């Protein structure tokens, strides 16, 4: 079954902010990190990555910096303070929602 695009968009936003809270990364590194850390369970289309990154940057949650590494120019993304605050907020929301869904799946019944 295909997940709804808005749900996947929210998940990819959460994942990107979470990964970038550890260290700055460029697009290709981020795509690999998402595949590795989610044990291939979530595969964000690599072409979808850049619209998401630029959208997060435009909203002030990421900042981009151009660096030359081994003769190649990369655009590294890092979390801003506003991004960190937003990450905390959406992490709490995600835990609340996933906790609720887990409870329902584990067979919580109406009293």
């Amino acid at each position: 079954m295909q997940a709804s695009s808005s749900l996947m968009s929210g998940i990819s936003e959460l994942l990107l902010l979470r990964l970038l809270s550890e260290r700055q990364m460029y697009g290709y590194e981020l795509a690999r990190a998402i595949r590795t850390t989610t044990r291939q369970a979530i595969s964000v289309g690599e072409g979808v990555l850049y619209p998401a990154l630029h959208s997060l940057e435009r909203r002030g949650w990421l900042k981009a910096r151009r660096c030359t590494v081994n003769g190649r120019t990369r655009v590294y993304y890092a979390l801003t303070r506003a991004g960190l605050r937003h990450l905390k907020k959406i992490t709490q929301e995600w835990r609340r929602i996933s906790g609720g869904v887990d409870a329902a799946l584990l067979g919580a019944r109406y009293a």
Partner: protein
Amino acid sequence: MRNRPPPPLDSLIQAGIAPRRARRILREFAEHHADVVAERLNLGDSAHEARLAASVRVGSEQQLLANLLARPELRSWAHRQPGLAFAIAPVLFFALTFVASLLAMIALVEWRKANGDALSAASPVIQWISAYAGAYLLWALPCGVAALFALAAARRRESSIWPCVGIVAVCFVGALTNFSVSVSPDAPSMGAGIGIGTDHLGATLMRACGTTALVLLPFLRVRWLQRMSLLH
């Protein structure tokens, strides 16, 4: 008749994504594609297989365009408010630079006076202001400001309507301004203002039309060339 889709950069800019951001997105996308090709080559793929795998994984430029255009937040404010950006902002910016230029000239004169220069009609500062400031304030400044905003609109492939309104507005407001330097030997003075008088109506209109033509015609030519380059 258009026989092929416009290049991705043009599509992004026409959709309202700022030119700098559009170029950066396409560059990052191409670099990502190259990284995936290199990764596949390291795994033993042939060059053809590696390119094919990269295209499947990263997607096409058309898919990237569709994903970008689905995000309205990536569109610049100038695209969302073209009237404000290309018609009202140029007039405000012209007024600001006009006043700032006058203040700079006053500051220069005061600074020379504070350093003990006796400012007479023969003074180099007064001679310089008398020779160039009028041409700068009454011609170069309105033309420069109107051209600057028109150029920004052309770079962003915006519709020509609002930039044309902006050019006409700045040039007409510029034509209403006046500046004069009196170089009487004992007490040189300068004055500036804005207004319209029936005694100088012809000259004002001539100046407005002259400055408008100086900016508007090259702008329309640039837009025409842009349109032609997209069609062929």
